[in-house]
């Protein structure tokens, strides 16, 4: 006698409804609808925020539900962006090259076209040959596949190696961070063939849609991001519900016991790790055409840590918490760092938020970790009077024993 998925997870309906209202509202206020209450640049910001929310719920599933603090999920996000960016650059350049070669005396050979595209794309970084990584860049379907498969494959291989040798806890976190660092250093190298520090740029110009104008294209991307977020939310809500979800949460709470119960813990973890990586890739593929440029700094270790910060502040272990955290913190930080926040004059010192926002963020982050482990999302719990199991204990092998008090000198 199991209740239906929706009945079990009423928050999904609430979330979808909210998202739909938000999307419709923004659409009607957008420049494309002729109202111009929301400028195109702000529309892009909103669209990008939705993508960040998507990667945040992926992070929440892997960390808040499965207990793997991955400091590498923004790398998967970046890979997704690179994958779509390669096609965008190739296709756009192909159009330019085709027009310019048309005027040549002889019709171009296929080799000449490839060479011309290569020198257009890589001329900026002093090269002209297509690296092997770009082998599929001419084909949109293949690159779209790569958006999902490339992060998935990396996560699969990395996860398989890590989980197989039972690297857990903070060790795994540090390892994922090292992976991100290695990846961003790899992308930074010119020899890699991804244009080094310059990255891929001009991604907002979608080949074939030049005539549409950015106002319309941005709105489409906003819709796509909203759709992806909605679908991602449902997908993850489904994954973490039911028996599968219970096993996942059990792994978070006590991995050894789950293993003793006969579950293949590694398989579960690997599945979650890979699935979330793929979703992160999709989020990245939607994000970067709106941002316009992707470069290796985007996947530096700090980015993934901020992802964890969003989820922690929003509230772990609840999907809407991740959405709230990502939207709130990222919008707030752009508000503060953008200089829009009014400075506070203390008389002897003027607090400029461009300088002090990170201090505020850091402090509030420490406070949230210490005193509000449930984050902002915990407020909703309080509203619906959902109480968590009381945790206690410190010191020693048997968590739950009152050794904390015993340990104190009297």
């Amino acid at each position: 006698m199991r209740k239906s998925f929706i009945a079990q997870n009423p928050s999904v309906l609430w979330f979808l409804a909210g998202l739909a209202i938000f999307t419709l509202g923004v659409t009607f206020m957008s420049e494309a609808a002729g109202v111009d209450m929301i400028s195109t640049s702000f529309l892009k910001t909103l669209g990008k925020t939705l993508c960040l929310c998507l990667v945040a719920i992926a992070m929440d599933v892997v960390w808040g539900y499965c207990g793997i603090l991955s400091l590498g999920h923004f790398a998967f996000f970046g890979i997704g962006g690179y994958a779509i960016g390669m096609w965008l650059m190739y296709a756009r350049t192909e159009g330019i090259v085709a027009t310019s070669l048309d005027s040549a005396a002889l019709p171009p050979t296929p080799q000449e076209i490839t060479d011309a595209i290569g020198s257009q794309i890589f001329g900026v970084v002093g090269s002209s040959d297509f690296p092997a990584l770009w082998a599929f860049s001419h084909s949109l379907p293949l690159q779209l596949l790569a958006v999902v498969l490339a992060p998935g494959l990396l996560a699969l291989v990395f996860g398989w190696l890590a989980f197989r040798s039972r690297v857990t806890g903070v060790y795994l976190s540090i390892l994922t961070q090292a992976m991100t660092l290695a990846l961003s250093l790899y992308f930074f190298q010119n020899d890699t063939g991804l244009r080094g520090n310059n990255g891929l740029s001009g991604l907002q110009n979608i080949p074939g849609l030049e005539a549409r104008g950015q106002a319309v294209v941005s709105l489409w991307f906003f819709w796509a991001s909203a759709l992806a977020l909605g679908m991602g939310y449902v997908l993850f809500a489904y994954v973490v519900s039911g028996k599968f979800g219970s096993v996942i949460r059990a792994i978070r709470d006590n991995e050894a016991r789950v293993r003793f119960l006969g579950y293949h813990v590694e398989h579960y973890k690997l599945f979650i790790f890979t699935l979330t990586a793929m979703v992160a890739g999709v989020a990245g593929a939607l994000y970067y055409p709106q941002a316009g440029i992707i470069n290796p700094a985007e996947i530096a270790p700090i980015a993934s840590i901020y992802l964890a910060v969003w989820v922690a502040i929003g509230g772990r272990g609840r999907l809407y918490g991740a959405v709230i955290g990502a939207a709130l913190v990222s919008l707030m930080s752009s508000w503060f760092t953008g200089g829009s926040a009014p400075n506070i004059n203390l008389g002897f010192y003027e607090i400029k938020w461009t300088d002090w926002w990170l201090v505020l963020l850091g402090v509030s982050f420490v406070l949230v970790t210490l005193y509000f482990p449930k984050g902002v999302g915990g407020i909703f719990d309080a509203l619906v009077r959902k109480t968590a199991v009381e945790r206690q204990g410190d010191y020693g092998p048997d968590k739950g024993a009152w050794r904390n008090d015993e340990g104190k000198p009297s």
Partner: protein
Amino acid sequence: MGDVTLKLSKNLLSTLSVTTLIAAGSGAAAQDCTIKVGVLHSLSGTMAISETTLADTMQMLVEGQNEAGGLLGCDLEAVVVDPASDWPLFAEKTRELLTVEEVDVIFGAWTSVSRKSALPVLEELNGLMFYPVQYEGEESSRNVFYTGAAPNQQAIPAVDYFLEELGVEQFALLGTDYVYPRTTNNILEAYLIEKGIAPENIFVNYTPFGQSDWATIVSDVVALGAGGNQVGVVSTINGDANVGFYKELAAAGVSADDIPVIAFSVGEEELSGFDTSELVGHLAAWNYFMSADTPENEAFIEQWHAYTGDEARVTNDPMEAHYIGFNMWVNAVTEAGSVEVDAVRAAMYGQEFPNLTGGTAVMLPNHHLAKPVLIGEITADGQFDIISQTSEVEGDAWTDFLPESAVLTSDWKDLGCGMYNTETETCVQLTSNY
């Protein structure tokens, strides 16, 4: 490193969008009109140290112009936004400046990647930007005026100086691994080979941003002396990494007389963070040095000190670029009688304005300046002794020393094309490479 929290637009509510208003207030301009000047320089993040100075410079220039009676009878207003050293934000802020603030011109960007980020937006919305920093060339946008040096205005004369004056026959091209050093070194390699330097006598090395472990690289450079030829280092090392590099060089007992280093990214501003005693005698190539002995420069430095209220602040090359760029724009607007982008652009070609180092800068149809090239030796007080000054060199968007770009030329005035293939006599593309 990009700062992810800064990724989203600060434009939470466009009504709250930041503007720094510098109105003259004196009532010099009678009409109720303002001409908006966008300033797109990072005020926070890693690039803030360099770019804040330029944002200040622009505000100083705008203020000065207002005191001098404004422009076309209107007051100028500087709209300062902060892209926070985050490259995607440059695109976003550019869009915001052009569509929400509706500025008439933008002065901004520092790194190549930030320029490449803003380019598509500028071209889409037909904006106008002045870019003040020395860069790698291989680009010419209809909507950007490059007031900094192209490689042939900095790198090539510097290497010529090495070849002719110092008799260097063995080159070490050391750079930070990003587009400017990569492209510059590619150009220099081709140029040196053309000048008869054997490829095996050119050592190229790239290091990451902020590199601190220089021991092996310095000993590699010292070992180049084993060929019995004079060794010279051409450094495109960026920012902090220079500190460790010069320290290691000094520790290895290498003086500027043994192995001279000529740097393209070390100016007065950077030197103020160094212990300069280790750098004395090493070289830098720029289009401007604070030590230039002209009345214009003296006045500019005085204005700068008065504006910042700090006698210790130094001036540098990108500041001069903005100074020239801004004044040329003012003159072009006056000439065109309008701030409309296409009219101003047409009026920009052939604009002349005196350099701070003497001589006259001219805006060429390829959107680059003709400027003199200066080479300075670092002195113990963090300044440069100017030891060589050429006559004006015309900036070349497409280098003549790489085969693919040798055939390209840029002429927005007569050909109306920034990437014109002189061999096939066709325009490769009207948008720029980004």
